C-alpha cells in the first residue's frame, strides 16, 4: 500500500432535503465544509488542497471546481475536480487518499455535493449512455437496475418481497440519522403496495432525489493523531469501471463489485469479510442491490443474499450491520452520496455516530456505485494498517 498512512480526521454533512431553495450551490457546499472543519478543529487556512466532485448536468454548471471556490474555500488553493457519475463521492474520497499519501499535501479537504432539485435527474442520467447503442434502450438509472433485479430473480428465485425487506431495514435505520432525508419506517406490505416504477422496483424500493453536500478531511500520519483522538485510517481503496456499454453488462451480479472487493480484501489480508468487517455503508440505490451486491462482495455465497437479509444479520444489532445511516434509499444527493458512505463509516470508527452507532467498530467498508454498473470502495480501520 501507500508510502505514508492517511486518516480521516473530520467529517461534515448538510441536513439533506429534497429541495433547498434557501441556499445556492456554493452555500450548500459551505455548510458541509464548515461542519467538517469544526469537527476536525481546523480552519480553512489549515487545508493544503481540495478535491471536489459532483455531476455537471444535475446543476448545469461547468467547471464546478472553479465556480465553487467561494463555498469550498478554494481561493488561492489547489482545487481539483474528480467525477465518475454515481461513484463520484467515493472517487473523491479515493482521490483525497492519494493526494495525501503522495506526500505532496498533508491535509486535504474532500467535497461531494449535489443539488438534484435543480435538474431533471433522469434526463441528465440518460445522456450518460452511448447515444447510438444504449441511450434509446435504457432511460435513466432505474431501467438498468430493473434489468439487474429481474436477471437475479430469474437465476436465484428471489422475490420482490426479498427486496422489500432490504428497504424496510434501511428506512428503519434512517430514523436514527438526523441527516437523512426520509426518516419514516415502512412495512413490507407498504413497499409492495407502492407504485411500480420498473418491474420489480416499487417506489419504496428506490432512492429519492436530494439536495446535500458532504465534506471529509484527510491528513497524513503524524498530523492525524494530533487532530483527533481516534482517526479513521484508510486501509485501502479499489475500484472497477468494468463496462462502457450497458448492453455488455452481465446482469444478475455486479462484476465490478466482485473484482474490486477481491482486490481490496486481498490488499488488507481479509479472508472472511463477513466475520472481519464490523459495518458496511453500501451505496445501494435500490433494495435488490442489498441482496445481490453483498454476494458479489463475498459476504455470503451466491444466491444466499436474501436468506442473510431475512435473518436480521444486517440490521442494527445484527452480525454485520449494513447502512446504519439509512443508506441511499433514505437520501441521495448523488455527487455526495458516495462520500456520505465514507463519512458514515468514519463516524462509526471514530465513535461519533450517535444514535446510529454500531458498537466496537474496528473495520468497515464504504462503497460507491454508478456509471455503467461501476464500483469504488474504501476500507476503513480503527487501527493503523500494518502495511
Amino acid at each position, binding site marked *: *500500500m*501507500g*508510502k505514508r498512512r492517511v486518516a480521516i480526521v473530520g467529517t461534515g454533512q448538510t441536513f439533506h432535503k429534497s429541495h433547498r431553495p434557501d441556499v*445556492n450551490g456554493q452555500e450548500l457546499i459551505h455548510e458541509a465544509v464548515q461542519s467538517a472543519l469544526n469537527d476536525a478543529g481546523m480552519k480553512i487556512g489549515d487545508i493544503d488542497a481540495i478535491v471536489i466532485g459532483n*455531476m*455537471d*448536468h*444535475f446543476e*448545469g*454548471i*461547468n*467547471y*464546478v*471546481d*472553479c*465556480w*465553487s*471556490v*467561494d463555498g469550498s474555500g*478554494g*481561493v*488561492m*488553493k*489547489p*482545487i*481539483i*475536480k*474528480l*467525477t*465518475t*457519475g454515481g461513484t463520484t463521492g467515493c*472517487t473523491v474520497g*479515493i*482521490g483525497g*487518499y*492519494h*493526494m495525501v*499519501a*503522495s*506526500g*505532496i499535501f498533508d491535509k486535504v479537504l474532500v467535497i461531494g455535493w449535489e443539488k438534484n432539485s435543480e435538474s431533471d435527474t433522469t434526463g441528465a*442520467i440518460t*445522456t*450518460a*449512455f*452511448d*447515444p447510438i447503442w444504449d441511450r434509446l434502450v435504457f432511460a435513466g438509472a432505474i431501467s438498468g437496475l430493473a434489468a439487474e433485479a429481474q436477471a437475479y430473480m430469474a437465476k436465484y428465485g428471489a422475490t420482490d418481497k426479498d427486496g422489500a425487506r432490504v428497504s424496510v431495514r434501511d428506512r428503519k435505520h434512517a430514523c436514527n440519522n438526523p441527516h437523512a432525508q426520509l426518516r419514516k419506517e415502512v412495512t413490507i406490505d407498504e413497499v409492495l403496495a407502492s407504485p411500480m416504477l420498473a418491474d420489480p422496483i416499487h417506489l419504496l424500493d428506490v432512492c429519492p432525489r436530494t439536495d446535500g453536500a458532504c465534506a471529509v478531511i484527510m491528513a497524513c500520519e503524524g498530523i492525524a493523531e494530533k487532530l483527533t483522538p481516534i482517526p479513521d485510517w484508510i486501509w485501502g*481503496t*479499489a*475500484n*472497477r*469501471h*468494468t*463496462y*462502457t*456499454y450497458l448492453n455488455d453488462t452481465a446482469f444478475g451480479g455486479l462484476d465490478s463489485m466482485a*473484482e474490486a472487493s477481491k*482486490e481490496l480484501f486481498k490488499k488488507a489480508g481479509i479472508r472472511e469479510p463477513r466475520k472481519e468487517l464490523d459495518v458496511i455503508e453500501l451505496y445501494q440505490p435500490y433494495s435488490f442491490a442489498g441482496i445481490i451486491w453483498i454476494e458479489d462482495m463475498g459476504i455470503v455465497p451466491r444466491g444466499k443474499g436474501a436468506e442473510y437479509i431475512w435473518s436480521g444479520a444486517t440490521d442494527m444489532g445484527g452480525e454485520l450491520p449494513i447502512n446504519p445511516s439509512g443508506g441511499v434509499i433514505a437520501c441521495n444527493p448523488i455527487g455526495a452520496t458516495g462520500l456520505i458512505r465514507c463519512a458514515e463509516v468514519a463516524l462509526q470508527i471514530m465513535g461519533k455516530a450517535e444514535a446510529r452507532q454500531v458498537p466496537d467498530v474496528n473495520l468497515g467498508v464504504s462503497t460507491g456505485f*454508478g*456509471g455503467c454498473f461501476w464500483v469504488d470502495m474504501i476500507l476503513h480501520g480503527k487501527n493503523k494498517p500494518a502495511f
Partner: protein
Amino acid sequence: MDRAAIIGLGMTRIEANKVRDTFADMAWEAVNKALSDAGMTIDDIDNVVTTSNDFWDGRTISCMAVGDASGAKHKNISCCEGDGTFGAFYGLTRILSGSYGTTLVTAHSKGSESISSLITNASFDPIYDRGLGMDMISASAMQARAYMNRTKTTPEQMALVSVKNHGNAIRNPYAQLPMKITVDDVLKSEMIADPLHKLDCSPVSDGCCAIIIANEDRATKYTKTPVWIKGVSFCSDSFFLGDRDLSQAPSLKAAAKKAYDMAGIKNPGKEIDLAELYDAFSYQELMWLEALGLAGDGKAGKELEDGRYDLGGALPVNASGGLLSGHPVIAAGLIRIAEAVKQIRGDAGKYQADGVRLALAQGLNGLCGQSHCVWILGKDK
C-alpha cells in the same frame, strides 16, 4: 517529492472535425501510440486516469465513453474533469502514493460536437453572470484589455504571438492550423471581441492525448529516455471576474513558485530551456510568461519582438504551435506536457529546439485562467 517520470506519449492529429472518430476511437489511437512509444503493452499499465468534461462531450459521466478504449476494464480507474494537466497531476499522485507503479493518463474532447459559446457561458454563475451573455471569448477580451492597459502591450505584440505560433505549427505534422501569416493579417482579421481578432483566438478542435507516468523503479524498465517530473503544482484564483484583477494571474504565480521550489529552480527565466503554454488567446502567452517569471512584468511583448521566444531564441515558447494552432479543450494541457517531453527527448523533429534539458508545461481551468497547473520536466534525474 519522490521521483517519477513520463515514459510514453501518444496523440491524435489535432483537427477541426474528426467526423469519423468517436471519443473512444480517439482514445484508442492515443493510448496505443503511447504504449508503443513507451515499449509497453496494456498489461504493463497499473491504473488509468481519464480526463474529460461532461459539457464539452454532451454526455453526463463523460469518462464512460473512453474507459474501455483506455484498456481499463480490469484496472483501477478514475476521471478528472478539467484540463489534462490536472488529470496528469492526479495520475502522478496515484504513483507517489505507492499504490501503483505506472499510470496511463488520457484527455480528450471534440469541439466540433460542441457549441463553445453556450458551453463556456455555463461556466459563469447562473444567477449573477450568465444572463449577461458572457462566454469565454468576451471574458478573455476584457482580460486582454485589462492586461494591455496595465502593461501597455500593443495589439501588434499580441498579433506577433499568433504569427510565431502559427509559423511554428508549419513544422508540426499534428497541428491543425499551420500558417505563414503576418502581423497585418492578424490585425485585419475579423474582430471577434475587441481587442481580439479572429487570429488572436485559438480554433475549435478535436483531439486526444495520452501519457504514461511511472515511478522511479519502473521508469527505466521500458524506455531509455524517461523524462523526469521535477516539480508540479496547481492553484485557483477567485471565481467572480469582478473579484479579480484580470490583468494579473496570482494563482499562476503561486503555482509556478511552488513548482520551481520543488524543482530547485531559482531563476526560471535563465534555467528553463523551453515552455509550452496555454495560449488560448494571443495575449495569454505574454501574460502567462510574465506570471511565470519567465519574462519581466510587462516586458513579454518587447522580448517577443526581440526574438527571445522564437524557435531559435533563448527560450522557445510553443515551438509546437501552441493552442493557437490547435485547441482540443481538456486535451490541450496534456498536449503541452507531451510536447515538452518530446523536446526534452529530442524527438520533436522539425520543431526541435536546441539543448532542452528543463522544460515547463502549463494548463488551466476556468475563465481567464482562474486555476493553473504548472509542470517542470527535466532530462536529468
